[in-house]
Structure formats: C-alpha cells, structure tokens
C-alpha cells in the first residue's frame, strides 16, 4: 500500500510535508521517534486514507477514550462484539473481574487494556496503536502484546517512543524524526 503526498500543518508549522510511505499489506510496523515529531499525525492521515480505501481501521488512542458511563464490557461491545466476546477479551487481558466496572473505577493500566480489548473486538483490517502500553507493567505489556499478535488484524501500525514496547509488538521498526516528519531508517525489530 502506497500513501503519497501527505501534508499537515499546525499553527503554520509543517508536521507532514509531502510525506510518502509504502506500507506492507501485512506485518507490524512501529514508528519510533521522539515526542512531537508527528507520529500521531501520520497515523491519523494513514487511517483516513485507509478508511477512504474501504478498510476497517481499529484504534487504540493515546487517550483511552472510554465512555465513562458505560461498564468496561459495554465499552468493548460498542466496537461490535457481543457480551460473551467482550467478556472473553477482557478476561484474556486479565480484566475478568473488572468487566462490570466503569472507567472511573479502573486504574490507568486497566483502562488501557479495555481500550486494547475494544480495538480487538472491532476485527478491523488494520489496527493502529498510539502508545498502547502506557501505564502497563512488564507482564501486562507482554500479555497484551501476545494477544494483539494472536488476535490482531494482519496489519498493525504502532507508535511509541519506548524501545521495549517497540521490540515487544513490532517485527519492523521505522525510525522517524521531525517535524516535519521524515523517515530516518528502517530496521528489523530487535
């Protein structure tokens, strides 16, 4: 999949300037770079282009974006899963007991895992993860990464500035810098 001429500017400052990129049809690509270099903006634009091309794109947003007045399982079910599937996903992520709690009653790490469960429940063609393991301990990160690899769609795009997270989930790491965003080099994940 080739995405060409991506442009974005905030307050007159280019974040993406005529940026073009070739993505594999399948694989887990991590965009690794410093905060504020334009990684999230790139993901938004890639998501828009993929959606326009008819693909279903699931997101794990940088903020959890859970609906505060719904239980954890209801938040997961909103992505199109039934109650049983939502509960299974939450249980697989170690949240079986928290399924009937509201986001306000969950810790930051638990909310993150609910957001991951929601993204998996969507069963999209691509999955975009923006700092997906923020607030998770090492075991929870490993568990979530394994579940994402097992149940996630063929194409996963991940943004992080944490090496451990990049290594856990991706099979290819693209080093980026900016703004405006530029690709520095591509390498296999360690």
């Amino acid at each position, binding site marked *: 999949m080739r995405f060409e001429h991506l442009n974005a500017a905030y307050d007159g400052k280019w974040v993406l300037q005529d940026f073009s990129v070739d993505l594999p049809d399948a694989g887990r690509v991590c965009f690794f770079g410093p905060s504020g270099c334009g990684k999230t903006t790139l993901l938004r634009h890639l998501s828009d282009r993929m959606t326009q091309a008819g693909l279903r794109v699931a997101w794990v947003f940088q903020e959890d974006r859970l*609906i505060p*007045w*719904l*239980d954890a399982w209801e938040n997961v079910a*909103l992505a199109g899963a039934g109650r049983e599937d939502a509960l299974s996903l939450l249980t697989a992520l170690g949240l079986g007991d928290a399924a009937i709690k509201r986001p306000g009653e969950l810790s930051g790490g638990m909310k993150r895992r609910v957001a991951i469960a929601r993204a998996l429940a969507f069963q999209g063609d691509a999955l975009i993860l923006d700092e997906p393991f923020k607030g998770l301990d090492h075991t929870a990160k490993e568990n979530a990464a394994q579940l994402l690899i097992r149940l996630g769609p063929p194409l996963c795009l991940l943004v992080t500035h944490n090496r451990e997270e990049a290594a856990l989930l991706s099979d290819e790491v693209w080093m980026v810098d900016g703004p405006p965003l530029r690709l520095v080099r591509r390498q296999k994940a360690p």
Partner: protein
Amino acid sequence: MTPSTTSAEKKPGYTVFGRKAKGGLSKWAEAALCALFWLLVWQAAAAAVGKEVLLPAPLAVFQRVASLAATGEFWKTCAMSLVRIAAGFVLAALAGGVIAVFTAFVPFLRTLFSPALSVIRATPVASFIVLALVWLQSGSIPSFTSFLMVLPIVWLNTHAGFLSADGELLEMARSFRMPRRKVFAKIYLPSALPYFTAACGTGAGMAWKAGIAAEVLGRTALSMGKEIYDAKIYLETVDLFAWTAVLIVISVVFEKLMLLWLRRMNRRFAYGGAKDAV
C-alpha cells in the same frame, strides 16, 4: 505520629454523608436551627407590628394551615393546582427536550426556532397570562403559562448539553463505525442528561411561580391561586400566609422528588461516578 485526617475532618462543621463531623453539627440540626432562627425573626416582627392584618404571627398561620388541612376541599384544591402546574411542566420538559434534539443536530432549525425562543424569553409572564385569558378556558391557563416559562429553559440547556458531547468520544465512535442511533443513545443523550436535569431544577421553581400567578389572575376554580386572590380581596392575611406556606411546601417537595428521580437517571445512564453509589 500524627494520625491521617481527611479534608472533611479538618473543617469544623463539614458534614460527611449528612452525619455529624468532628466539632460540627449534622446537616439536619443545622437546617433546624436556621429554620428556628427565621421563625423567631418572623415572630418578633409580627409582635412589633402588632396587627394581624398586616403581619400575622407564625402560630396563627400554622393553626390556619391545620384547620384548612382538616377539610377535603383543601386537599382537592392542592391536588388540582399540582396537576395543572405539573402537567405544564412535564409537557414543557418533554417538548424542550425534543426540540433541543432537532435544533442541536439541524442548524437550520436552530435558526428557525431562535426568534420564537427570544420572544418567549423577553415577554413578561403577565402578558402571556392575559393573552391566555382571551384564548383559553380558565382551567388550562396555569398549565399553559407554566409550559411557556419552562420550555425555553429546558430547550436551551438541553441544546447546550447535546453540543457539549466529548469530541474525542465522537471521533472514537466514528473510528469504530458505531451506528448513529447508538452514538445518540450512548454518547449524546448521556451528555445532555445533566444539562436537562439542571434545567428541570430551575424550571420547576419557575413553573410554580408562573402557574400560581396565572391562577390568581385567571381566578381558576378550585386552585391555590384563587384562594390567595380571595384572601387578598377579603383582607384575610392569615389565609394568604397559610396558602403561601402550603404552596411553598408543595413546590419544594415536587422539585426535590423530581430531582431525586432525575439524579438517579443521571447516575444510571450518564456521568454519575461509580455505579455502587446508586
């Protein structure tokens, strides 16, 4: 080692769940003391004036309320006023909520309804009552007046509630291709519910004031407003105070019960914190 203290304990008189906090009074004891203070002020003022026709003493008023309450007519009068005003209020709350849905999501309708809203808000309640005297039968004037007073409050607030829906949640809903009906039910409606509740709280007071004013001017049969009007005509100041006291009690109870129910709805369906608190 200093024992840990909560912020509630640090403030004297601060109550925790209505119970007595360290060094303070309970909520109810505080309220009773305040009520007693104002009754004493009233009693002192009545004694100073010395004429029941100008300012009756609290005891005389309570005795009159008790004697009125012993008659069936009193309860019928209260019930009829309550039904009329509550009907206007409920209809206005429903209509305001429905119109807010349309104006929040269809910009043209917002423009279309705005002048009507401005006219209703700017027109004195007395003008509406007089107009209603020409148009309507006496029995429906209080409902009509309450309806007109409450409608713009509920409409404007609920409209603002819909517009306050979290943009990030809406973006999430688009990403996950949530059907429109679900987005409305799960994001927009719960976002507007606290605004609707606040509007109903304000509107209930307005409904009673406007509704009773309409009963007074329309001299509606079997109404608290007519009793107040008659008390004024025959200079029965004790009756005026008695009916006003009854009216205050009924309107406060009405408002509290309605808000209690709406707040339960908020906790269940909107942002009301932990479910356990329900």
